[in-house]
């Protein structure tokens, strides 16, 4: 059984991972996947894995599968406004996927 749902992806600074997770959970989201060992380059400069001295500068990717499209968009915009619009480096986007149930 396939069901079309939304996948919300957030790529941002590793340093705020616990804040974001806390915020996500406060939005009643109970499931997500986190990818570590991510680096990148954007408007706010190179974000590379920093040679062990501090995890400062590294990115993470959070992936949240949300059934309801409206909710997905809402969550995406909330996270964007709270953390990424002018403060931390990052990008937020949505993809349509079909999940097996």
């Amino acid at each position, binding site marked *: 059984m396939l069901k079309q749902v939304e996948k919300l992806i957030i790529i941002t600074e590793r*340093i705020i991972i616990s804040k974001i997770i806390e915020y996500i959970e406060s939005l009643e989201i109970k499931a997500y996947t986190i990818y570590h060992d991510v680096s990148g380059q954007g408007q706010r400069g190179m974000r590379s894995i920093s040679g*062990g*001295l501090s995890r400062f500068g590294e990115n993470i990717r959070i992936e949240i599968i949300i059934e309801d499209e409206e909710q997905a968009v809402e969550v995406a915009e909330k996270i964007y406004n709270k953390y990424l619009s002018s403060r931390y480096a990052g990008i937020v986007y949505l993809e349509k996927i079909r999940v097996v149930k």
Partner: protein
Amino acid sequence: MSSLEIAFSNMASPAILFFILGVIAVSVKSDLEIPDSIGSAITLYILISIGLKGGVSVSKTGVQGLIIYALAAVIIGIVITTLVYVIMSKIGFDSSNAGSIAGHYGACSSVTLTSTLVFLQQIGANFEEFVPALYPFMDTAALITAIILGYTGLKKKSTETDKSDYAIKDILRISLTAKSTLLIFGGFLIGLISGVEGTKSLMPFYDNIFKGVFTVFMLDIGLLTGSRLYELKNVRPITFLLAIILPPIHATIAIILATFIGLSPGGATILAALASGASYITAPAVMRDTFPDANPSLALAIALGIIFPFNIILGIPLYYHLAIMISQFIK
């Protein structure tokens, strides 16, 4: 050899040569890299080792009377951070950036500290072994001061929603529970509790191989510094100049206070290393978290690219020389 001559022989110490090797490796675009996890593990090892050895040494004499030194460390942290914040604001940085830079300057550099310990042992200078354990006191005081100063400057800008992010008690918690605080301080307590006998069997690990492991750490710092050097080209001349003028001033403040409260020239040099060194482990993380609007590369580039090499190559020997002179003067 005069203390100055001894001092400058420091430049050819293996640790510094490994640092230079790291910088060179990056500049010739070598594929040499030290994995993250190894860097973390070495940091952990060094911080525990410093704390542990401090604690063991204090276990011989007792903790009575240490409070005055801890207080001195706190005062130095607050004074230096405030000084830097005021200067940075004067030369045109906004509150976020001034706060962030002040935090980097005020907080401590474990590698500068370790370099100093290795240097003092190398030349056979005596020092009070508890002084390295003052690290968390100065570090935390500096970070909190920077945050308070930065906030005060930002007051009008901060909105309702952001309030929770700026709670002073959160910051205090972050500083006190930061990896480096916990390890140095935890190591100190364990050394204090277990004493010379209890830790003897740990010393082949935490002491004998220490200087060797430290060379790998210096190589890692060299690689990191090399990869940040290019950012120095964006640094304004005045900022650059300050990065060379301020560390000796901070060191001098620390040495005077240290000598005044009775530390030996060796001990005063260690406090000077804590004062003059700029943090690139705790501070970048805490400052990034607190002042997301500040340019994170700027402070880091200064700390790693200017202050650190200046201190380990020229600074430390100079501070030691200065500490001897001041101690003679005060006596």
